[in-house]
């Protein structure tokens, strides 16, 4: 019977061409939306590499044209750390997790070049504040003060790119600036390797990262200092007020802003979710349109093929058999559309499009195929039932 259905559909290929192309486009849309959703879900479920809960970001601003002397900044850090409820305080660069500030560079080790990697300035307490997970070596320590090269900690993905199977600790790499002599301060020595981190949004993948040891010998040119504050559980507005008062106690010229990193995370998440939800809604409308179209075409097909239905019943088909035949025909038509769509979709992993691994693409192909079969089966169900209920004697007499 399956061969018969294939023969029938193949012989009706011109009539079915529009139906097949409709299914093809539905598949492509579902594949696209599926890839976005699966990639986002995979990233969401992947380890973040650090713990943003109970971390606040404290921005201390000296004001435009004002100075931020090192001694006063150190005083602020010391006094904030001493507050009850504060566990750790770490000085860092402005590109804090879940903010829109980014700082990136590409690096080279021998002939191995990295893609653009996020670079952060971090003091000796940064790892403790964000609870980064060390895989090799150590985090920065006062012992690094006298080193010739600037100590850095890198993420595991960057380590794999630059050093492969070689040991990474102690290795020196530089910025990738072809034709320019490297200055000693631009030579970075690896002292540690941490887990991959996802600091942009919940739905983005890990980005290779480099933490350069922050050496604030002179902060007078700074206008803003970014500070990570890890607090004890259940701390809230009272502590935030205390922190603001503490900074004001050191110097009244400086202003402060304390934000909860968890709030930043949720806020940043919206920037990914809104377009994804929009895409899903558009896809849904498209699929509903396609489904209604399929439903109408099938309904019309059945009304056009009443004599054939009567004939098949006369030849020995049961009512249920007729219903299954129409459902089967629709599945065969769907198969043609899905095969064409899969051929197109398979190009994405083969061409390594958008630098995504093959797995989300393959999962999206499977999911899109499943969804298309489900939609067409649902659309074909009622018309097939109608076909099954046609009285053969009546259908045969009509022509």
């Amino acid at each position, binding site marked *: 019977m399956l061969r018969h259905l294939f023969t*029938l559909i193949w*012989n009706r290929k011109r009539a079915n061409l529009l139906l097949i192309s409709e299914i093809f486009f539905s598949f492509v849309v579902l594949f696209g939306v599926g890839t976005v959703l699966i990639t986002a879900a995979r990233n969401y479920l992947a380890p973040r590499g650090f713990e943003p809960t109970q971390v606040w970001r404290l921005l201390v601003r000296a004001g435009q044209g004002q100075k931020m002397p090192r001694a006063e900044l150190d005083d602020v850090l010391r006094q904030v750390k001493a507050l009850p409820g504060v566990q750790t305080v770490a000085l860092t660069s402005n590109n804090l997790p879940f903010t829109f500030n980014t700082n990136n560079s590409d690096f080279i080790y021998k002939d191995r070049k990295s893609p653009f990697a996020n670079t952060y300035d971090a003091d000796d307490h940064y790892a403790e504040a964000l609870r980064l997970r060390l895989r090799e070596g150590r985090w920065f320590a006062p012992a690094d003060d006298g080193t010739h090269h600037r100590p850095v900690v890198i993420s595991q993905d960057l380590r794999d790119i630059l050093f492969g199977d070689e040991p990474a600790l102690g290795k020196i790499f530089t910025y990738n600036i072809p034709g320019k002599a490297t200055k000693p301060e631009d030579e970075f020595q690896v002292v540690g390797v941490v887990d991959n981190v996802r600091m942009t949004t919940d739905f983005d993948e890990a980005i290779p990262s480099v933490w350069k040891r922050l050496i604030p010998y002179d902060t007078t040119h700074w206008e803003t200092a970014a500070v990570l504050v890890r607090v004890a559980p259940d701390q809230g507005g009272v502590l935030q007020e205390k922190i603001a008062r503490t900074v004001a106690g050191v110097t009244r010229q400086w202003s402060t802003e304390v934000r909860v990193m968890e709030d930043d995370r949720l806020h940043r998440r919206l920037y990914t979710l809104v377009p994804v939800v929009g895409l899903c809604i558009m896809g849904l409308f498209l699929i509903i349109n396609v489904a209604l179209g399929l439903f109408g075409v099938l309904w019309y097909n059945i009304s056009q093929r009443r004599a054939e239905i009567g*004939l098949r*019943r*006369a030849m020995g088909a*049961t009512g249920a*058999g007729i219903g299954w035949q129409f459902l089967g025909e629709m599945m065969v038509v769907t198969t043609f559309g899905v095969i064409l769509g899969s051929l197109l979709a398979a190009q994405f992993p083969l061409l390594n499009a958008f630098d995504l691994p093959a797995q989300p693409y393959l999962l999206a192909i499977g999911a899109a195929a499943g969804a298309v079969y489900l939609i067409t089966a649902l659309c074909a169900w009622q018309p097939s039932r109608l076909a099954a209920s046609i009285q053969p004697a009546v259908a045969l007499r009509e022509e």
Partner: protein
Amino acid sequence: MTGAYCRYSLSYFNLFTRFSHLFLMENLLATSPETRPQPLNSPAATPVLRLTNIEKVYQTKTIETVALNQVNLTINRGEFVSIMGPSGCGKSTLLSLMGLLDEPTSGTIEVDGRPVTAYSDRELAGLRNLKIGFVFQSYHLINDLSVVDNVEVPLLYRKGMSGKERRQRALTALDKVGLSARTGHFPGQLSGGQRQRVAIARALAGGPEIILADEPTGNLDSVMGEEIMDLLLALNRQEGVTVVMVTHDEQQALKTERVIRFFDGSQVS
């Protein structure tokens, strides 16, 4: 031992009557309608279809139409029966009931002595597939299937039959109707007579005991009509297939073994 003897005796008797019947059919075709012998109604004739007190009433919200009224009819194995009557007298309804495509409002239909009124949809479909072949006035070929694929259609619903066997049986049936050279053609490429032959081959492919033909020559010119009629007669004579044919053509009806006339839903002769 006695039982076995009786069974053998009965079989030989049936065989004898069958040969006698075929011999008579040969004569029947050779003689003119006026000198044609009367149909076989010997006690030994085996009923293949029996309709008892059949009534068929179509009901709508406003009108009740009696299509068949108290029809009692027996079709014997190997007979060629024609059904005649004016349009709307219930001929096609009768054929639908005989073909188990419709259920009577009241009365009993028996196939091979077994009442089928209480059969399920699946059992009726099985009976239609195994025992009955249909030939329609408008051929009812599937235009998107080749000739051989059209002939295979009834065999698709036969369980356990391989694709190879289906194809072989379809080709044999097409050979019988003289269309071996047209197996790959599509219905649109054939003449009306050829299409009707394909329909007959399709009815034959399943090896049915009964062929129900609803005005098989109605859409054909007289030459092609004759051709199809001859084919049905030959099938009846050579293959022993029981044929029940609805026709408006008096000349063709007279070539058959028995003519049943209907008027206004009732059998009048």
